[in-house]
C-alpha cells in the first residue's frame, strides 16, 4: 500500500494535467532545406508540401515515406489540390497547374493558369493562395513590393510610378506594377479580376465554413499591428500603394492623400493581433472543419504565428452586420516550434503545421498536432454584450470566476499611419462593474466601465479553475471592438403577458423559423428588425397579422413572404404581439 499511494497521486496528477493536444514532429528527408511554403492533402491521404528551393514532395502518413512530386518552382507559397495527380501551385511568376499525366508519380506538365499580374523582381513580391469558393472561383493574394528591394530593369506589367512613394523620402511598400497589394479573383473561365486592395503582406488566405474569405496581414507601414481582414469585393484594406490599380483611379499618388481620407476609405480589421502579445507575424487562417475531431473549437479559425511557438485561435461574431471578435492563444509551446507558416487539417482531423524560417527566423519542417480527447479548461467563446463581454468556458468554473480581482482588463488602440507599426495608444485599465455566472458555471458575464468602439479589450485571467480543479490553459484573450451592440430599446409592455407567451409558442410551432430568426436576417427580416420598425400597438398587430396570413413582399425587399392562409387570425395576432414586444 505504501507503494501504491504515491502511484495513485501521480496518476491523478497526470490525469488532471493531461494535455488536450500532443505535438509530433514529422521527420524530413535528408538534404531538404525544409522551409515550408505550402501544405495540402491529396484525396488518397498523402500529404503534399512545397519548399523554398522549389521542391514539391509527398509524404504518406502510413508508410512515412517522402517522394518527390515536382521541382524547380520559384518560392511556391500556396497550393490547392485538384486530384491525386494534379495540384495548383502559386509561385512567384504565376499560378501553375502541375500534373502527373503519365502516372509515374512525378509531375510532367506545368501549365500556366494565370500570370495576368505584374512582377518587378522585387524580393517581397510573394504570392499566396489559391483558395476556392463554392462557385469555383479561385482567389490569390499578391504582396506589395518592399522599399528595401529594388525594381529590376526589366519588369512584367505596365509601370505606374504613382504606386511608389517618392514624395517625402519615406520608404513604404509599393505597387508599381498591376495588382501588387491586391487579392484577385480567378473565374472558372480564366479571367483574373481585381477583388480587394490595400494589402501589404497577406501571407495566407482562407475561407470559414460559411464561405467568408479571410486574410491576415503583417505589421508595418500603415499596419499598426497585424490584423485579420474579412475580404470582400471592392473593399480597400488600408495600405495605399495598391489603390493606383483601382478601376478609374484619378487621384494620382495615393500616398499623397490625407490620412483621414484613406482612413475613411478603408475597411477595418475584424481582429487585431496585438504585437508582442498575441502574434507578430500571423500567417494562414484555416477553419476547424473537423466537426469535433480536433476538439471543442469546431468552426473557429486557427492562425499560424511565425515568431513564437504558437498557434492562435480566432473567435468571430457578427455585430451590426460585420464580423468582429477575439483572438486567444490556441497552442503555446508544448513542443510546437516557431515559424508556423501553413496549416492544414489531415483526413483524420489532426492539424499539420508547415514551418519556415526563410529570410526570417523560426524553425523549418512539419509538425502534426493531435487532439487527445482530454478536455482542458479553456475559453470556448467570447462575445460582446450590451454591458461588457461574456466568456463561455469549455468546463464549469468555480466561484473564483466571480472575483473581479481575477481579471485584469485593459484597452488600447493602434494608429493608422505611414510609420512602421504603432505603439499601443490610449492604454487604459478597465474597471469591472459586476460579474455574473450562469448556474451551470460555463458562462461568465462581465459588465465593464467604459465600453467603447475602436479599442482592443485585453483580458488576462488569473486563478480561474474548473470545478474539477483543472487550471485555465490560455489566460489571455483580446477582443477587437469595432462596433457596439445597438442599444436595446426597452419597450413598455403593451400586450397581455399571456398573449405574448402564446405568440412565442405559435412561432416555435409554425414554419416561421424557415425564413426568420430572432436576431439575424435570414430569408426574411429578423424579429428584432421587425420590432424595431413597427411600434407595439394594436393597429400594427392587426395589420401585420394580416400580412402573415396573406403573405406579401416589398417592405423588406423583393423576396416573397409565404401566405399562411390556414392560420387563425387570433394566432397570427398573438405572434405579432410577441414579436413587437421584443
Amino acid at each position, binding site marked *: 500500500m505504501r507503494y501504491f499511494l504515491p502511484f495513485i497521486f501521480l496518476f491523478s496528477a497526470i490525469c488532471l494535467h493531461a494535455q488536450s493536444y500532443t505535438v509530433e514532429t514529422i521527420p524530413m*528527408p*535528408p*538534404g*531538404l*532545406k525544409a522551409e515550408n511554403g505550402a501544405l495540402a492533402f491529396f484525396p488518397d491521404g498523402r500529404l503534399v508540401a512545397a519548399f*523554398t*528551393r*522549389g*521542391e514539391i514532395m509527398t509524404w504518406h502518413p502510413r508508410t512515412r515515406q*517522402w517522394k*518527390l512530386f515536382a*521541382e*524547380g518552382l*520559384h518560392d511556391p507559397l500556396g497550393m490547392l489540390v485538384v486530384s491525386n495527380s494534379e495540384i495548383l501551385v502559386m*509561385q*512567384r*511568376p*504565376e499560378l*501553375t*497547374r502541375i500534373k502527373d*499525366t503519365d502516372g509515374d508519380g512525378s*509531375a*510532367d*506538365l*506545368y*501549365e*500556366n493558369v494565370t*500570370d495576368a499580374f505584374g*512582377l518587378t*523582381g*522585387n*524580393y*517581397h513580391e510573394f504570392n499566396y493562395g489559391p483558395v476556392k469558393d463554392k462557385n469555383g472561383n479561385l482567389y490569390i493574394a499578391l504582396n506589395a513590393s518592399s*522599399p*528595401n*528591394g529594388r525594381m*529590376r530593369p*526589366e*519588369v*512584367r506589367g505596365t509601370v505606374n510610378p504613382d504606386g511608389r512613394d517618392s514624395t517625402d*523620402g*519615406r*520608404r513604404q511598400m509599393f505597387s508599381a506594377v498591376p495588382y501588387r497589394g491586391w487579392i484577385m479573383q480567378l473565374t472558372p473561365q480564366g479571367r483574373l479580376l481585381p477583388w480587394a486592395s490595400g494589402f501589404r503582406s497577406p501571407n495566407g488566405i482562407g475561407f470559414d465554413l460559411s464561405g467568408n474569405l479571410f486574410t491576415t496581414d503583417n505589421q*508595418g*507601414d500603415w499596419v499598426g499591428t497585424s490584423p485579420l481582414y474579412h475580404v470582400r469585393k471592392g473593399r480597400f484594406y488600408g495600405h495605399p500603394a495598391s489603390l493606383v490599380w483601382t478601376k478609374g483611379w484619378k487621384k494620382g499618388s495615393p500616398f499623397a492623400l490625407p490620412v483621414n481620407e484613406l482612413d475613411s476609405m478603408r475597411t477595418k480589421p475584424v481582429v487585431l493581433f496585438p*504585437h*508582442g*502579445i498575441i502574434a*507578430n*507575424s500571423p500567417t494562414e487562417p484555416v477553419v476547424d472543419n473537423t466537426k469535433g475531431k480536433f476538439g471543442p473549437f469546431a468552426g473557429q479559425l486557427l492562425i499560424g504565428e511565425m*515568431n*513564437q511557438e504558437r498557434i492562435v485561435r480566432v473567435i468571430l461574431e457578427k455585430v451590426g452586420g460585420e464580423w468582429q471578435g477575439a483572438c486567444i492563444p490556441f497552442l503555446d509551446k508544448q513542443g510546437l516550434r516557431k515559424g508556423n507558416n501553413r496549416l492544414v487539417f489531415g483526413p483524420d482531423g489532426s492539424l499539420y503545421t508547415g514551418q519556415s524560417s526563410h*529570410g*526570417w*527566423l523560426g524553425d523549418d519542417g512539419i509538425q502534426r498536432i493531435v487532439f487527445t480527447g482530454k478536455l482542458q479548461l479553456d475559453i470556448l467563446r467570447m462575445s460582446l454584450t450590451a454591458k461588457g463581454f461574456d466568456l463561455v468556458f469549455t468546463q464549469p468554473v468555480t466561484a473564483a470566476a466571480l472575483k473581479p480581482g481575477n481579471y485584469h482588463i485593459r484597452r488600447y488602440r493602434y494608429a493608422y499611419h505611414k*510609420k*512602421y507599426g504603432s*505603439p*499601443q495608444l490610449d492604454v487604459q485599465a478597465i474597471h469591472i462593474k459586476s460579474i455574473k455566472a450562469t448556474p451551470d458555471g460555463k458562462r461568465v458575464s462581465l459588465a465593464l466601465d467604459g465600453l467603447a468602439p475602436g479599442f482592443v479589450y*485585453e483580458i488576462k485571467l488569473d486563478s480561474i479553475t474548473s470545478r474539477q480543479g483543472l487550471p485555465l490553459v490560455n489566460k489571455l484573450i483580446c477582443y477587437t471592438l469595432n462596433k457596439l451592440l445597438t442599444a436595446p430599446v426597452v419597450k413598455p409592455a403593451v400586450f397581455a403577458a399571456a398573449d405574448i407567451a402564446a405568440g412565442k409558442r405559435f412561432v416555435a410551432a409554425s414554419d416561421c423559423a424557415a425564413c426568420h430568426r430572432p436576431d439575424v436576417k435570414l430569408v426574411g427580416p429578423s424579429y428584432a428588425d421587425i420590432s424595431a420598425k413597427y411600434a407595439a400597438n394594436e393597429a400594427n398587430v392587426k395589420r401585420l397579422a394580416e400580412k402573415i396570413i396573406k403573405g406579401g413582399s416589398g417592405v423588406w425587399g423583393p423576396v416573397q413572404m409565404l401566405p399562411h392562409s390556414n392560420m387563425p387570425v387570433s394566432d397570427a395576432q398573438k405572434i405579432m404581439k410577441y414579436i413587437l414586444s421584443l
Partner: protein
Amino acid sequence: MRYLKGLLLLALLPLQQPRAQSVTIPMGVMTGLQFDVVRFRVPPGAHVKIVFTNTDDMNHNLLIVKPGMREQVVNEALQLGEKGPEADYIPASPNVLWALPVVAPEQVRTLEFTAPKTPDVYPFVCTYPGHGTVMYGAMYVTADTALPYLATDMNIPPQRRQDDISLEEKEVYHSGHHGHDMAALHPYETKAPYLYRVFIEGASPAAIAVCLPMQLAYCWDASACKLRFAWHGGFLDNSDLWKGKGDALAKVVGTKFFQDSTGYPLGGPGAEVRYKGYRLINRFPEFYYTVNGMHVYEMIKPKEDGSGIVRSFRIPGNTKPLVFHGENNEHMQMESSAGTWMGSTLQLSAAEAGAFSIIMTIKAH
C-alpha cells in the same frame, strides 16, 4: 558591399586608435535581420560612438550587454510581454550596459559611451521581439589589433562566419561536378536536365533556367516567350537567391555564348505572345506558347557532341510561311535544319515551319 564595409572598418581602426582613443562605428541593418557591422574592435576605455541608421523596413533597437549575457538579456526582454513596447524592449537588467531605444526605419540614432577598461567580448543585440536570436554581433574590447578568424568566431551569427566569398564558394553548384564536400541542395541528386524558375540578370522576372547535360545551360523567358541566353561550363549559383529575403539574383556559372537582342525571333516585331506552360519529355522541358495566335512548341537540347544547343520548334497545323529572326555573334554560329537564310533571317515555307530546328554552335577559340 555591406559585408566589405565591416571588414574595411576593422582594417582602418588601428590607424585611428593610438592618439584619438575615440571610435565611431557606422551601423546599419541588412535584410535578413542582421547588423551590417557584425563585429568591431575598440581599445579599453575608448570613447565609442555608434551611429545607428535603421536601413531596414522593420523596427530595431540596439543593446550592448555584459560578456556572455546576450541570450539572458534576450529572454529578459521577452519577459517584458506587453510592457515591451513602452520599455523599447529594453529590460531593466544589470546585464544591459548601454542601449538605444527602438529606431524606426530610416531613422538615425547615436549611442555614445566609454568602453569598459576590462578587455572582453561584449555582445550587441537587437531585442525587438523575435530578433534577438539572430540579430546580434560582438564588440571586442581589446588592445590587440587582430580579431579571431572570422570563420570560427563563435560570437557572431553562424551565417556571418561565412561572409564574403566563402558562402558563395560553398554553395556554388557546378553541373556535373558534384563534389562530396558540398552541402546537398535538395533531398535528391540533381540530374540534368532540370530547371529552376529564378530571378536572373538578362531576363524578365519570369525566367526559367535549364541545366542541360554536357555542361550546357540556357535561360528561357516565360514573359517574353523566347530564349534569352545560353551558356556553357556550369549552371547556377542560387545561394544568394535562397539565402533569405534579400533582393538577390541567381548567378550564371560558366560562360555565355548567346544573349538575345531586343527583337523577337518569330512573328516579327510587336508579336503578341502568351506563355502556356511546359511539358517535361524525358525531363527536357518543351515550352508551349502562342505567337499572334499561332501555337508554338519549343524544346532545347544539347548538340550530340556537346558543342552547342539545338532549338526544335513545332507549329502543328501551320499553313503559312514563316520568318525566323536569328542572330550571330563572335561566340556562336546559328544554322537551321530547313529554310533559306537571308543574312540573319531564316525564310521557312509553310511546310518547313511545321517543324524545324535552329542549331547554335559555340565557336572554338
